[in-house]
């Protein structure tokens, strides 16, 4: 890798399967640190990760990892590690053998030492002598991570790495990935869970329907997500009076009476949720129910795409 080359470079990459476009003209460059690929299921995150890992050929554009083309370049695996989502282990191998064979296939000088170190990193020493076929989903995930980092890769790619892990394991894996990033390595992981990305990633790439909807510092994007227009359904003792009071509030830009419901639109999520109770009290109205109209992650993503 030359001094100027980013660790991961994706240049106008598209990938389609027949008429279906899985990834659509995505470009970005990453260096050291943790990047989260965030998006709903089926958004194209795995397709993108597999292209980064050299397991899918881009239909258009190019992918370079550590300055080298990712496609048809097995030598690249000396410096990258991949953890795929699928629970794929050799069930007849013990956890130690699974990681040891990974070290041997990487032709590491002291494979036994490297395997033990990697198993220690994922805290699986107590189960390393057992056959992986009997592992839980979370244990399989951790032993796969150990096998993927046994050669201490410069770039680590992980597809939904926290699936199946319990909360304690999740925290431990997050700490481990943070430590790797601190050493200057590039960690890219995919997730459809906002909180996972929020807790771990320095940068985020939001993928929706195969397109890059947003990218950059996670906190900036989180702010965009929070400050987007929201709407709520309310049911109160007097909807009409509450509507008249709410429309005077600065955080509200629209009210609509619809049958038994009152629909309120706001551009300031935090201000509105803090103000609504006080407005109702001053108007002498009791609120029976308040609920957001659509808070699904998909709606957040679709807002980011439309921006």
């Amino acid at each position: 890798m030359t001094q100027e080359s980013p660790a991961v470079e994706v240049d106008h990459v598209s990938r389609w399967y027949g008429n279906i476009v899985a990834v659509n003209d995505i470009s970005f460059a990453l260096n050291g640190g943790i990047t989260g690929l965030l998006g709903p299921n089926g958004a194209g995150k795995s397709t993108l990760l597999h292209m980064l890992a050299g397991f899918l050929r881009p239909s258009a554009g190019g992918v370079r990892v550590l300055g080298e083309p990712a496609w048809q370049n097995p030598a690249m695996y000396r410096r990258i590690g991949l953890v795929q989502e699928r629970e794929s282990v050799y069930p007849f191998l013990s956890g130690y053998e699974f990681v040891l064979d990974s070290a041997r296939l990487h032709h590491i000088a002291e494979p036994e030492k490297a395997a033990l170190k990697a198993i220690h990193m994922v805290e699986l020493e107590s189960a390393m002598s057992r056959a992986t076929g009997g592992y839980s989903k979370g244990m399989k995930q951790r032993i796969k991570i150990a096998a993927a980092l046994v050669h201490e890769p410069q770039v680590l790619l992980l597809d939904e790495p926290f699936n199946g892990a319990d909360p304690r394991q999740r925290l431990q894996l997050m700490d481990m990935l943070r430590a790797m990033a601190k050493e200057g390595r590039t960690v890219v992981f995919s997730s459809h869970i906002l909180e996972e990305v929020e807790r771990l990633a320095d940068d985020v790439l939001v993928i929706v329907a195969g397109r890059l909807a947003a990218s950059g510092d996670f906190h900036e994007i989180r702010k965009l997500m929070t400050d987007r227009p929201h709407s709520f359904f309310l049911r109160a003792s007097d909807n009409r009076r509450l509507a008249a009071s709410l429309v005077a509030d600065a955080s509200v830009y629209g009210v609509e009476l619809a049958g038994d419901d009152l629909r309120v639109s706001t551009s300031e999520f935090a201000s509105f949720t803090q103000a609504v109770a006080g407005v109702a009290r001053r108007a002498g109205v009791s609120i029976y129910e308040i609920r957001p109209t659509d808070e699904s992650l998909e709606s957040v993503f679709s807002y980011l795409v439309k921006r």
Partner: protein
Amino acid sequence: MIDPTILRLTVRQLLGQRRSIVMVLFALLPVLLAVLYALENDSSDAQEWTAKVALGGLVIGLVLPFTALVFGTAALGQEFEDGTAVYLLAKPIPRATIVFSKLVVAWAATTAVVVVSAALTGAIGLSGEPGEGIIAGFVAAAVVGSLVYCAAFLWLSIATSRALIVGLLYVFIWQGVVVSLFSGVRYFSISQYALGIAKAFITAPDEIFDPRLNVAPAVLFAVLVTVGATWLSVRALQRWEIGEAT
């Protein structure tokens, strides 16, 4: 060109399969028939029965292709099925090394099963009659045939997710029906290559054993198919793409 870790992994993978045990039992079928034949018949046509029916028909015609189909397609195909292929492919190993290592194990496993079947069937079937190179010929046919079949089926397992079905169609329909009906297509039958090679060792007259291919074309086509299928396997593995379901 051969990686010891891949060899070991593949051996353990193949040995742990239930279908491997089934193949060993299947390979004992001609041996059992030879025992029955030896008990029931006099030895006047032992050479002909052993060469044509037991070894040519059952061992080379059935046991060899089915054993090679099971081991040849499982050696790498099973890893594509269960997703462990990525574990292997995400390593800085030339794809040719992976193919050669897998082929060696599939070949060794198939050879071990078929050679034992051929040797036992031959020894029992001949019942002390002069061998005239029959056992040696069919052992050689088993060794070479195993290699050619495994190379072809290994390629099938990379090229298609339905390798077993395609392999069965080849063995049953192509070799079992088409080749027996149309002599001209014998050049495209791996079993015919094996039988042709067996003839090089057999001194018995043509009435006892007379394969459809002579030794020279049998060897030539065996080499061509093995090299061609191995080259195609390496090429297919270099271009292998992960499926969305993988």
